Every structure is written in structure tokens, then in C-alpha cells.
């Protein structure tokens, strides 16, 4: 094995410091697809988690089936199937959302929901039963008690793994290039196919790294705000960032 082409620094320089309008479009697609798919994934996960804890057996069964199917099959297969089994319209929300992007969002969010179900359920399970009992003894109904008492506390447990999920989501969106969505990876692939210079992939790797790094900052901020109150052992933003950037502890922030 030998290197076919030396690194073309000029291409990388251009791709990083002189992004064109196609790149901007691709970046925007990657961002909105990952944000919307993650948000819907949380929603699906929450519904599935509540169904899993339902007293009504068919709900529990459906929730189990959902996780079995969508965690047990490749997300790429799900993307292709959903894309080709429906005809997806183009949406105009001030910017064009092509049908491929809708199909991609649908597949990614449904897949994500299966993972979020477990994360949300673990979060809810971590809250002492006495909290629900206290809420009920004050006359709260199940939904109100969940919304006002249990879920806000569970959020603290859910947020760190949720952050990791979103980090993965931003990278996984590259798969929707395969059904024709013009996102970051498609943009790089197009550059490559016109020049056969692999440096386009190196440049796009840099952009993914920028996205995930920005997210790390945002997540650290969110976790810090959630940690306010309660035990008084909250970390400062700086401590959290240090922990996040330390390769030994990155993504394994349950230590504290």
C-alpha cells in the first residue's frame, strides 16, 4: 500500500477558508437535519418510554417491538426503505426541504427514538419512587406529576447521554447523502468526483469536527445550568470543558 496522492494543501485551504454557496447549503442541511431528527427522536423516545411503563400491555408490547426493529436493523437500510416506500413531497419553509431530506429526517429520528427510549427510561427509573408518591399525595395526576416533578429531575440524568447521541447524529446524517440529500458529505463527494482528490474528505472531516466541537461547548453549558441547585457539587463551565476535552474522560462523563 502506498499513498496515491500527496496532500493538496491548496484544496484544503480553499475548502476551509473560502467556502462557496454550495458548501453553505450543505452545512445548513447537515445542521437542520441533525437538529430536527434529534428533536423528533427525543419525542419518539419519550412516547416509547412512557408506553413501556404503561399499565396497558399492548403499549408495552409495541414499545418493545419498536426498539427491537429499529435498533436491530442498520439505519442505512431504514433510510433506503423509508425513502423508497413513500413519495416524499418538497416542503417550503422559507428554504426548500427536499423530499429526500424529509425521508432522511424520518428515518434518522425513528431510529434515534429507539435509542432515546432506553436513555429516557433509565433517567425516569433513576428518580426515587417517593417523588411520584409525594406528587400523587398532593392530588397530582400522572401526567402532571411526570411533567412537573419526575421529568425535570430525570432530565439531569438524560442530558449527558443525550449530548452524545446528538454528537453521533451529526455524523450519521452523512448517510443521507446516499438518497441524494445535498449535505456536507455530498458536497465533499462532489468535489472528489470532479478532481479525484481525497483532500475534499479531509476538509469535510474538519467541518464535522467543528460542528461536534461547537456542540461540546453548548452541551457543557446546558449541563452546568441543569446542575445549578440541588446538591451544590456542580462543576464550573471550565471544569466541564476540561473534562470534555480530556481524551481519557471525553464522552464518559458519568464520573461525577
Amino acid at each position, binding site marked *: 500500500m502506498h499513498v496515491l496522492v500527496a496532500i493538496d494543501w491548496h484544496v484544503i485551504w480553499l475548502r476551509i477558508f473560502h467556502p462557496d454557496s454550495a458548501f453553505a447549503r450543505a452545512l445548513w442541511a447537515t445542521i437542520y437535519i441533525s437538529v430536527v431528527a434529534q428533536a423528533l427522536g427525543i419525542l419518539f423516545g419519550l412516547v416509547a418510554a412512557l408506553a413501556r411503563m404503561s399499565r396497558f400491555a399492548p403499549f408495552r408490547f409495541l414499545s418493545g417491538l419498536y426498539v427491537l426493529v429499529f435498533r436491530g436493523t442498520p439505519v442505512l437500510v431504514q433510510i433506503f426503505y423509508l425513502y423508497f416506500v413513500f413519495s416524499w413531497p418538497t416542503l417550503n419553509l422559507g428554504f426548500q426541504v427536499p423530499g429526500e431530506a424529509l425521508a432522511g429526517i424520518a428515518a434518522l429520528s425513528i431510529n434515534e427514538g429507539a435509542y432515546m427510549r432506553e436513555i429516557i427510561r433509565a433517567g425516569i427509573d433513576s428518580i*426515587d419512587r*417517593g417523588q411520584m*408518591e*409525594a406528587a400523587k*399525595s*398532593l*392530588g397530582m395526576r400522572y401526567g*402532571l406529576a411526570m411533567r412537573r416533578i419526575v421529568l425535570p*429531575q430525570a432530565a439531569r440524568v438524560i442530558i449527558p447521554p443525550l449530548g452524545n447521541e446528538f454528537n453521533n447524529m451529526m455524523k450519521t446524517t452523512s448517510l443521507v447523502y446516499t438518497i441524494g440529500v445535498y449535505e456536507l458529505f455530498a458536497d465533499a463527494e462532489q468535489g472528489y468526483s470532479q478532481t479525484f482528490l481525497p483532500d475534499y474528505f479531509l476538509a469535510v472531516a474538519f467541518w464535522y469536527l467543528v460542528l461536534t466541537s461547537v456542540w461540546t461547548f453548548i452541551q457543557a453549558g446546558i449541563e452546568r445550568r441543569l446542575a445549578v441547585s*440541588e446538591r451544590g457539587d456542580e462543576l464550573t463551565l471550565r471544569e466541564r470543558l476540561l473534562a470534555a476535552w480530556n481524551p481519557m474522560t471525553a464522552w464518559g462523563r458519568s464520573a461525577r
Partner: protein
Amino acid sequence: MSSATGDVVMRATDVHKRFGRLEVLKGVSLEVRQRETVCIIGPSGSGKTTFIRCINHLEKIESGRIEVNGQLIGYRDANGKLREDSERSIARQRTQVGMVFQRFNLFPHKTALENVTEAPIHVLGVPAKQAVDEARVLLTRVGLGDKHDTYPGKLSGGQQQRVAIARALAMKPALMLFDEPTSALDPEVIGEVLTVMEELAHEGMTMIVVTHEMGFAREAADRVVMMDDGLIIEEGTPEHFFTAPDHERTRQFLSKIL
């Protein structure tokens, strides 16, 4: 001590409850009148905690009936058979019954004040400003007028339990249930909680207190009820209990605990 001559607030009739094979309540009947303070004592496993948890339907019952202010709790009469009531009406029934737990169960993500205002605002629909004013009064009454904005995690056990009492009182319940309210507390803070409870009893709150604090039972109770093995085996005034109990089992229990 208050004179207990009012109407019946809580009436339990022949309540049976089992956990799987284990029968924990084997036919418990008890009446509690307005302004009365009843202490339930007895060895652990005798069913005292289970019994008061049935009174606000945190536990289902197999048979018998429990009424608060004449209203059946947790069930409705369907041609002589009891069917579990809807979640909505159970929730509404619970607003009349305050509960204080052994482990406080304060909401850790809310300040002391927010703990107290939470249910009046979101369950009863009391305007926020009024709920806050009332909560301030209640917190002052339990001696925590300076802790409004403190989170439970920063309060001692005794302080947390007093917030929990204020939280239950904020619903203006007809009946207060206390489930071993001092059992999880350090000895030095038990007194501050008992003092608040004694004041409540003297002010005429109707209370059912499961407790091992015989001093409290002697001071504040109008009536003491002894439970053993899922049954009420003896009830009477504190004087009766602590001087000449009828039942051999009661004598044994008291000699161990006093």
C-alpha cells in the same frame, strides 16, 4: 389536646390488604373524628404504614371501605361491588388528605417555597401570588421563614420534614397522615419536627400519626391505636395505654420500646 367531638372525618371499615400471599391488613376498622389526633403504634410489619397509605389510596385494598368526609376513597360502588375509581377522581380525593412521608420526598429541583406552592398552583389553580403569600405564612409557621429560597439539598433532615409538613398543609387538607415522620431523622432534630406536629394537633388539625415516638403519643394524641399482625388489637386514651394496657401484646411492645 383537643376535644374530639366533631364529625367523623375518616372511617375505615374492615379493610383487607395483601401483598401477594402475605396478608398485611386483616380487617382494620377505625374512625377518626374532626380535631382528633390518633397515633398508631405497633411493631414493624404490623401493617400501620400500609394502613395509612391506603387512606389516600397509595395502596389498593382487597376489600372493606375507607371514607374521608363521607366520600369513598379510591373506589366507587357499582351495585354493591367496589370498582377502582378513575385516576381523575382519585387525584381529587387526595387533595383532601395531606401526607407526610418518612423520607420527606421533597422535590429536590424546587426551592422550599416552590415545594409548598407547587400543588396549590398546579392542582387547585390558586393564583400564584396568593399561593406564595400563603406558603410564606406556612413556612414561617413551621419555623422556616428564612429558608424560602433554599433547595432541599441544603436543608437538614428536620428542616426538610418541616417543609414537607408545610407542603401538605398548603392544600388545606381535612386530614393529615404522618408516616413515621421522625424515623429517618437524626436524634437532635426530632424535637423540632415533633414540636410543629404538637402545635398542629393543639390547633385542631385532624391527624393520624404512625410513630414510635411514645412521648409524642402521650403528649399530643387523643387516642392511641395499637396494631399487631394486620389488626388493631387495642385502642384507648394515652393514659390508658401507658398506665394499664389491657392486652398482653401491647404490654410486651411498650416494655420493649419505653
